[in-house]
């Protein structure tokens, strides 16, 4: 599942339409949460600020049972930080490679899935007039200021690994200039940059979602016992009255053999056939059969030095 997080509804609107999302009405949810029919995309709107981000991301990810294979994508407007005005343009999208704030250690999402956007540091501030006391945007890395990402990533990392956390920001203004005007930005301008940004983001999000699904399917296909052979494996273990530990040993052996070229299904069927032929009756016979026949290494050979 791709879980998108925005602070404000206007930042989410275009994605809600694009993915055909419907709001989930649940009184237990302290957050506006949307989902599509297939359950492949969800979106939450947390409200502004780090506290909202932490609470709402935690609640939504718990509700959605987020875990392995899911992606968390934060998107929203940000101001180009002082010093990055010459590097970033209004309307430009950046992807977070570092996220810092005055609270706690910086967070580093893993940029495993390639991006067509500039990498940048996102500095999460308390508000548009907040003073930043730490260094940012060093070594030519552009920096933008937002109000949620550090909190959102910290909360999401309780559920997902750093490779599954992605932060996109679209530059809505130059932060210093906005500060000098009292911290307010024009809502119409912001809506326009957000709308254009989504047009550029959908393709990348779809590609990353596809890549993540492929990787998950690779991991799944490396499962020890393929679906079709699970019943036969269960029967084999049952007939041999294997302990949990022995089942694991056998599973690992079948997995190793599969990785070395003997398909798991074929291997289990062969063992089951062998078991039916030998039909060990007593506990001792079963143990001997397990040791000498089931665990016999099909790859053992003679001694070519002699």
């Amino acid at each position, binding site marked *: 599942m791709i879980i998108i997080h925005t602070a404000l509804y206007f930042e989410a609107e275009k994605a809600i339409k694009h993915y055909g999302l419907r709001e989930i009405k649940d009184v237990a949810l302290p957050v506006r949460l949307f989902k599509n029919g297939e359950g492949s995309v969800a979106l939450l709107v947390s409200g502004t600020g780090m506290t909202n981000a932490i609470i709402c991301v935690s609640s939504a990810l718990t509700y959605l049972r987020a875990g392995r294979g899911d992606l968390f994508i934060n998107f929203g407007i940000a101001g180009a930080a002082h010093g990055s005005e010459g590097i970033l343009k209004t309307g430009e999208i950046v992807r977070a*490679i570092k996220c810092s704030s005055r609270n706690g250690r910086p967070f580093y999402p893993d940029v*495993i899935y390639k991006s067509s956007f500039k990498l940048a540091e996102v500095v999460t501030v308390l508000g548009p007039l907040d003073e930043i006391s730490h*260094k940012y945007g060093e*070594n030519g890395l552009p920096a933008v200021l937002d109000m949620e990402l550090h909190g959102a990533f910290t909360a999401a990392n309780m559920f997902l690994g750093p*490779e599954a956390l992605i932060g996109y920001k679209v530059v809505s203004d130059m932060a210093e200039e906005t500060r000098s005007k009292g911290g307010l930005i024009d809502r119409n301008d912001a809506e326009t940059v957000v709308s254009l940004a989504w047009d550029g983001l959908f393709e990348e999000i779809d590609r990353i979602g596809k890549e993540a699904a492929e990787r998950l399917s690779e991991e799944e296909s490396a499962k020890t016992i393929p679906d079709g052979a699970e019943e036969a494996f269960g029967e084999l273990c049952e007939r041999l009255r294997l302990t949990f530990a022995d089942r694991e040993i056998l599973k690992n*052996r079948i997995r190793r053999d599969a990785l070395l070229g003997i398909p798991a299904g074929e291997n289990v069927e062969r063992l089951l056939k062998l078991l039916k032929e030998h039909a060990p009756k007593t506990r001792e016979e079963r143990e001997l059969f397990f040791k000498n026949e089931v665990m016999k290494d099909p*790859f053992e050979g003679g*001694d*070519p*030095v002699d």
Partner: protein
Amino acid sequence: MIDVIYAEREVLGLPFAEKVISRIPGAAVVTIDRWEDLFYRKKQNYALQKKERKLIIGRNRGSFVMEGSGNCQSGGAEVFKYCSFAKNCIGGCDYCYLQGMMRSGNLLAFANMEDCFSEVEAVIEKEQVSEDKRMLLAVSYDNDVYALEGLFGYVKMWSDFVNSKKRPGFTVEVRTKCGTKSFIDRADPSSGSLVFTWSVSTGENIRRFERVTSTLEARLAAASYALDRGFRVRLALDPVIAAGRDWKEGYRDLCERISLLGMGERLDAVLTGGFRIPADYLKIMRRNAPCSPVAFDTYEVRNGTAGYPAEKERAISEYITKALTKIAGVPEARIFSYDKDGT
């Protein structure tokens, strides 16, 4: 291809960091406070990070030198230590213990090598290393530093260190799977304190279980070249992977190649032993390397180490020792087998 370098603020500006950064043009440089903030993050996906490696350059604020593991052989030295100044390597070997040991799959290189060398000097003094109390310092267990010599230049640093003054009984071992000969020319064999160990396996094992490593032919050719240049050279048939129908044939073929190159009698030592790994690491390795047949073989746990069942371990050791002596022509006294002595 490394596209992101994370560098501690403290090491930026040091010649080591600047040199490494300049050697990866186009990579984004992200300034970090401490390497631990990245290396020990929660819920990292080791396998994915390994496929899309990033580089972290930091400062080691702890110890560089540690006791050599009881699972490795010192090749006869009385004092066995290992030194870790770079973690993870560019290779991808299915049987690598790093998959069970490291929380992160990213490369980590320490820039404060002068602290490392001071610590090594102190250890040599403390251990009273001499011709009668020899010490082996393995410097490339956690990273194939030789393969990354073009990027980090660590081998040259160690060569300069051992040649800077006489330290009787002290040997630095650089172990590698890289077949590049040109890096040998960066080092100086005159002190006799630098030993190169090429980690070799059968051609089939290399093809099946290793990625981004040199071919067997290239490794043996590099080893032979180093011998010709006057270096002490060792081979590590370690770990012996007894998987697949033809593993014995494979090791026989490997010994024949060693013999054909006339290396048997010229080698300083040959280290061998069946695959083994701390049992705790094996559990993590199975999670981090779900497609590694080596990880899912059947092992016995003895004294906290998972390895082939004792009987098989003995058979492997006997077979390899026999092949090395009978075919490769290595004197038995120079074969150090994990099963035999474990030292």
